[in-house]
């Protein structure tokens, strides 16, 4: 479980994980903007998604077309089991660290 994930990759992975059946290029970039208070271009999202898929953390399938998309289909991403466990692994590692944080405020 030693997948190296960059900050952006981790965030995008998280976003995909929390948006079942709805994660594709445009929605991911919108979600990123909404939650991270920061803009990211669609092309950057595509790159990250592709990279994550290559690492086996997410998988994709072609979804339906809508009028807004000019009749083009969506490529919908879903987190894989490996992806999910990677996220949990990272999170648990972080938690361990958080637990070690001196809780000065509470010991007054």
């Amino acid at each position, binding site marked *: 479980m030693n997948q190296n994930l960059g900050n952006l990759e981790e965030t995008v992975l998280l976003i995909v994980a929390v948006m079942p059946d709805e994660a*594709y*290029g*445009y929605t991911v*970039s*919108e979600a990123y903007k909404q939650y991270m208070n920061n803009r990211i*271009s*669609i*092309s*950057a999202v*595509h*790159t990250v998604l*592709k990279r994550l898929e290559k690492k086996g953390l997410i998988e994709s399938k*072609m979804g339906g*077309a*809508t009028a*807004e*998309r*000019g009749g*083009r*289909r*969506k*490529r919908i991403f879903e987190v894989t089991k490996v992806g999910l466990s990677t996220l949990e692994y990272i999170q648990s590692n972080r938690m361990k660290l958080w637990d070690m944080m001196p809780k000065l405020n509470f010991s007054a």
Partner: protein
Amino acid sequence: MSSGEREKLPPKWANQFLEWYCDDGLIDEIQGDLFEAYYYRKQEVGWRKAKWWFVWDVLKFCRPSSFKKKSNNPNSVSMLKNNIKIALRIISRKKWASFINIISLTLGITAVTLISFFVADEFSFDDFHEKNDSIYRLVTDRYLPDGSYDYTDASQPLPLAEQLVADFSEIDAVSRVSKGKRYLRSDGNTQEENVLLVDSSFFKTFSFPLLLGNENTAMEFSESVVVSEDLAMRYFQSIDVLGKIIEIRHDEIFKKYQITGVVANVPSNSSFQFDVVMNYDQTSYYSWASNSWGVRIDEIYVELSDNVNVATLNDKVKDYWKKYLTREAEESKTYKGDYQNYWLQPLSDVHMASDVGSTFSTSDPMNSYILSGIAAIILLIGCANFTILSIGRATMRGKEVAVRKVVGAKKPQLIIQFWVEAITMSFLAMALSVGLVFLLLPAFNTLAEKSFVANDLLNTRLLITLPLIALITGLGAGTYPALILSGVKVLDFFKKKMKLGGANLFTKSLITTQFSLSVMLLLGAIIVFQQIDFFKGQDLGYDNTNVIVLENTMKAEPERMKVFENVLAGNPKIDSWTGMSSSFGRGGFSSVYEKPDGTEFNYSVFFVEPSFFDVLGIDILAGRNFNELSSADSNSIIVNETFLEKVAGDFQLEDNLTDFKNMGLTNPKIIGVANDFHFQSLANQLKPVVLLLSSSKKSFYNFLIKTNGAPDSELLQFLEESWYEVAPDSPYSYAFMNEDIEGQYQAEMRWFTIVKYATIWALGLAILGLLGIVGMSITGRLKELSIRKVLGADTLQLYYILSRQFFVLLVIAAMIGIPTTVYFANGWLENFAYHIELNPLVFSGVLTLILLLIMVIIYLGASRVLKSNPIDSLRME
């Protein structure tokens, strides 16, 4: 409504760009996401911003990962690499053949490059003027009374220019231009310079930038001149010469002028070549003609306004002369057709208009075409060598082609392979020819009368042209081998049915062409050389050795000449001297004499002194010399034999020539007959001559001095020093008479050099081609030769078998080459009144020479095989 709808769509061009580069497998997600983003952003931030977002995103997606995948691209690149690698291997394996190939192509490319310099320069004349497109020259077509066309020339009356601007609103500015040579003097340094007389608008119309001085006012002051950078350096060693004084000689007098401008050196591709510019209005040179409509001195250049239709203006200009040339207009009524027509010639056509009479040097476009033709022929011969050798090696390459085909190579791939091979060689040849071009540049400059400098040529144009020439050469040379070799049938090859190799009809005809070109050029060179030699060896009827010709610049002051003659008398190295109207080869007067029976003939006139005959070694065959003391001799003439023959029926020695009124003589008495002499080039028929005794030395343009023995530097120095002692204000200029006379044959000498170089070139290429084909045909017949040897053929018989076919080719080549040469040589020799007759001995000599050359080359190519042990080649398998 519809426009509102359209506004809502993303920019069409960006979308098309996206669809163009994006891979089909990715277009759904990428274009879909962008469209969706655009759709929502439009509502959020407005369509303008959304549009820009869209464009920005399309650009950001434009990267290799989203590009269309071309499955064949990487393969063709590596095939190209492989092809080049194989080409280089073949070059290094077959060193001798590759050497011949590359040298042939090098010679071809070099010739084309050099000649393209020449042609490009010729066609670039006067292009550097910024207003090039709107400058025109006024020229006149002239007609004969019977309505037929006579000639076209560019000289116009002086007052016309001013009227043109006044009468035509289409003409913005006008400048008269005429050129002349003047002596310039500063600090005792006197030289003859090219002077241009112009109007004050000259520097505004033409782009000759002034380094110093104001182009608007430089020509406005009286007695002011503009000089070139080069002239300033020569006279003042600095270009900072504004306000300096320089003296210019006119009508025998030096007059001071102030320098008011320095113009950058004139580009070599300018029709006007000058070092000094003066203003018509500020000099009095042509004041005698400034209001005359009958004297034509200058050329007129007009600058048209924008958007002027030249065709319409030409219609208006055509008969414009009738307005001012009233006498001519009257005269034109008796003409059957036109009298004369004005028209405007674009400035860019001026240099190539060699058929328009002009004082500025022009160039016959035919020269460019002929040279381009020569270049093409040389390149073709070079390519032919390549083709011959490649076909010759077909046997060797056939195996490779067959194997490649078995493995699955397609015909186009093989064609590309052989093309790449040819192009690789032609690029190697190109590299060599760059070196050769710079090596040959000085010789080429003399030949082409250009002054190309190596550094100037290393420009972007060359960097584009040269690879282009190499590419075309490679493609051209490689086409035939590529088509033939790629067409090899695999089974035919393995069944040993291949009939390529050696010499087929195609290569035979190529070799025959090379031979016949070599025969033609070699014969041509010899004939031109013989003619020049004939000119030089001919007895001219006078002796021009050890004669110095002086320019008589003090002819306005005959007293000074007397003093100078006294000085000459004091020098023992000087044998005799004489003044005459103009030295031989420097023009002179001529006139027409009408005999009593009404027939006319043209004769030349020279003003001489009694010492004329002594100095030039011309004999008086009958009668007597002039006597300066006899007043009767001012109405006497001495004629040459030809003149006397022409008038023989009517007059003889001691007769008075009736109806002769010329040069102040009336019915003069023929007192002597001199032997005939060729005062003109031998291209001209010997002319009748009348010699007159000059009453005053003012009519002597030249001064001839005969020295005892060859003139040495001490004597030349003595002449110059004593000249300036006598006449400090008269520039001294000398020449040797024999060099003057030889200078008449410059054009022929130049042709000789051109033909000589072309011969070396063609012969060299033919020899290379022959060497190659001999080598090939021996390799192809190695086994046959060895078997013949085993069966008892000796070296001589084998040699005969090998060379037989080439002798047949030479005979065919001679049958083509000799009649062609005879045709052209006769045409050329017709130009000369005195010329050699074509000598069959020369023709057989040239053929023998080429035959011997072929024999030697074949022997060189074959000796190794002829001497080798037949077992070696028979045992090979």
